[in-house]
C-alpha cells in the first residue's frame, strides 16, 4: 500500500524516513508467539513424564555408576542443597537481582529514548549506529575489571556493565521498530490534524511496540548474563560470585543449586516477556 502511495505521492513532508521495511529481526517474534503450550491433559502428562524421565535417569545413572559428587552431584542432592541452603543463597540472589534490575531499567529507558530520538534524524543515526553496534558486540564484562579498579567492589561497576549490555540491545531493536514508518497511517493521523507528538504516541510507538518488547527481552537476558559475569570477574557477592566460591571449594551440590536458580531466572524472563508480547504485540501475529 505505502509503496503504491509513493508512486503517485513521493513527497511526504517531514514525517517519516524513506524506508518501509518488513525486516526480519534477529529474534523472530512470531517464533515466540507461535510456540504453543500444552493443549490437553494428555500432552501435560507426556511433558511431565519426559521431564521425570530426564531427571530420574540422571539420578539413576549417577547412583548406579557411583559418579562422585565432586564430578556431578545427583539431582536429589542439588534439590536438597537448594532447599536447605536457600538462606545462604538469598542475600546473593537479592544482590544479583538488584544489580540486574537497576542496570536494566537504566539501560532500557536510555535505549528506548535514544532509539526514538535518533530514528527521527537519519543523519544522527548514521553517526551513532557504529558505536551502538560496538557496544552490542563487545562483551561488557570486559569492562568490569577496569571499572572495579576505578570504583571498587561496590555495585556501581556491575550496574554500569549491565546497563551497557542491556541498553544497546534494547536500543537496536527499538530503533528497528521506530524505523517502520507507516506512511499511510501517518497520513491518516495527519488528515485529522495530528501533531508530531500525537503521531508518535498514537502511531509510531504502537507500531514499534512489538520490536521494543523483543528488545526488552533480549536486553533482559543480556543484562542477566552480564550481571552474573561481572560478579564472577569482580565482586564479593552475588550468584556469580557464589559460583566461583562453591566451585573453588568443590561444593558441587551448592554450585548446581545456583545454576538451577539462574536457569529459573532466565526462564522467568522469557515467560514474562512472552506474556507481555501476547498482550501487547499479538496484533502482529
Amino acid at each position: 500500500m505505502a509503496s503504491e502511495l509513493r508512486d503517485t505521492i513521493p513527497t511526504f513532508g517531514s514525517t517519516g524516513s524513506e524506508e518501509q521495511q518488513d525486516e526480519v529481526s534477529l529474534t523472530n517474534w512470531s517464533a515466540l508467539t507461535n510456540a504453543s503450550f500444552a493443549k490437553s491433559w494428555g500432552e501435560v502428562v507426556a511433558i511431565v513424564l519426559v521431564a521425570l524421565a530426564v531427571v530420574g535417569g540422571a539420578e539413576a545413572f549417577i547412583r548406579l555408576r557411583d559418579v562422585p559428587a565432586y564430578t556431578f552431584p545427583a539431582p536429589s542432592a542439588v534439590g536438597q542443597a537448594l532447599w536447605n541452603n536457600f538462606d545462604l543463597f538469598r542475600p546473593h540472589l537479592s544482590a544479583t537481582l538488584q544489580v540486574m534490575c537497576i542496570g536494566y531499567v537504566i539501560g532500557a529507558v536510555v535505549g528506548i529514548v535514544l532509539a526514538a530520538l535518533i530514528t527521527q534524524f537519519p543523519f544522527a543515526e548514521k553517526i551513532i549506529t557504529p558505536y551502538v553496534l560496538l557496544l552490542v558486540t563487545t562483551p561488557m564484562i570486559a569492562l568490569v575489571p577496569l571499572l572495579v579498579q576505578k570504583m571498587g567492589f561496590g555495585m556501581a561497576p556491575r550496574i554500569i556493565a549491565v546497563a551497557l549490555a542491556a541498553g544497546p540491545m534494547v536500543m537496536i531493536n527499538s530503533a528497528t521498530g521506530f524505523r517502520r514508518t507507516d506512511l499511510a497511517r501517518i497520513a491518516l493521523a495527519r488528515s485529522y490534524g495530528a501533531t508530531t507528538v500525537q503521531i508518535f504516541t498514537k502511531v509510531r510507538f504502537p507500531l514499534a511496540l512489538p520490536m521494543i518488547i523483543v528488545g526488552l527481552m533480549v536486553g533482559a537476558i543480556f543484562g542477566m548474563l552480564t550481571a552474573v559475569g561481572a560478579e564472577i570477574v569482580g565482586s564479593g557477592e552475588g550468584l556469580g560470585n557464589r559460583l566461583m566460591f562453591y566451585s573453588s571449594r568443590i561444593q558441587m551440590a551448592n554450585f548446581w543449586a545456583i545454576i538451577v536458580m539462574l536457569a529459573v531466572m532466565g526462564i522467568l524472563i522469557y515467560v514474562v516477556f512472552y506474556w507481555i508480547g501476547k498482550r501487547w504485540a499479538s496484533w502482529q501475529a
Partner: protein
Amino acid sequence: MPTGEHHVSIVATEGVGVVQERSVTSASSSTVLTGTAPDASRQRRPPTMSVEHATKHYDTGTGTVHALEDLSLEIANGEFVCILGPSGCGKSTLLWAMSGLHELTNGRIVLNGSPVTGPRPEMGMIFQDANLLPWRNLWQNIHFPFEIKRLDPKPYQARIRDLLDEVGLAGFEKKMPRELSGGMQQRASIVRCLSFDPEVILMDEPFGALDAFTRDEMNLLIQKIWMETGKTIVFVTHNVTEAIFLADRVVVLTPRPGRLAHVFPIDLPRPRTIDQTFSPEFIKLILDVKRTIQSGAQTTNGGSGFAVD
C-alpha cells in the same frame, strides 16, 4: 434535468486543455461544457471548494515530474465529483492537495472561503487502503479521529452506532482489523470518516483493492450515504464505470502533466442501480469518457489536443 441542482458547471477556462467545442453527446440533457457563465439556477449553491491554478511539480531521481499543471475546478456544496484518469495523471496528487496533506507548487485550494494550508476539520479522507490501526479493534479504530482531534465522542455515540448498523458492521465492534475482510475494513474506514461528521469527504481510490462484487456493493453504499447525508464528495478513481455510476460530474484528467481534459456532467437519475450500468445510455457515457482519456493520453504535450470525435 432531475438532478440539475447538483451541477454547477465548472469554470475551467484558464490555460487548461478544455475543449469547449466538444459536445457531450451521450446525455442529451446534460450541459455542454462551455466557458460562459452558467445559468442562474445552477449557481444557487456557492462553491464549497475551489481549486485555483493548481500546479504540482516534484523532483525524482530521474528529473522533475509535472504531476499537475494549472488545473482549476470548482466543487459545489453537496456535489459528488469523481476525478478520473489513468495512473500517474496526478489525480491522487490533486486530492492530497485538496486534503491539505500536500502542498502545491503553485496555485491554491480554497475551502469555504479560506485557503487550505493544512488538514482541516471540515474534511475527512478515505484512503485506498482501509488504513485501520492493526493494534486497535474496530470500535477503537473508529474513535481514533476523536482522540487525535481531542473531541468528546459521547455526543457521537448514537451516530456511530447508526453508521455501523448502516454499513453492516454492527456486532463487529470488538473485532481486530485482521479478523475483517477487505470490504469490511473499508466499510469501517468509511464509518471512521463519517463518525465526526465532516462536510467534505475526499476518497482516494477507496475501492481499488476490492474485488468487483464488493466494489459494486461499496458503490451502492456510498451512493446511499451520499443521498442521505448530502455531503460533498470528491472521489478519485481510475474505474470509468465507477466514476459514472457515482458522480454528478466526472472530471477527466490527462496524464503528465495532469491537466483538466474534460468534465462530464452525469444526469442519470438517482438512486442508480448496478443494472443501469449496462444500459445503452450508460455505456455510451463510458465510451465517451474512455475516448477522452485515450485521446488525452495520446497528446504528449497535453495542450489543446483533443481529437474531436
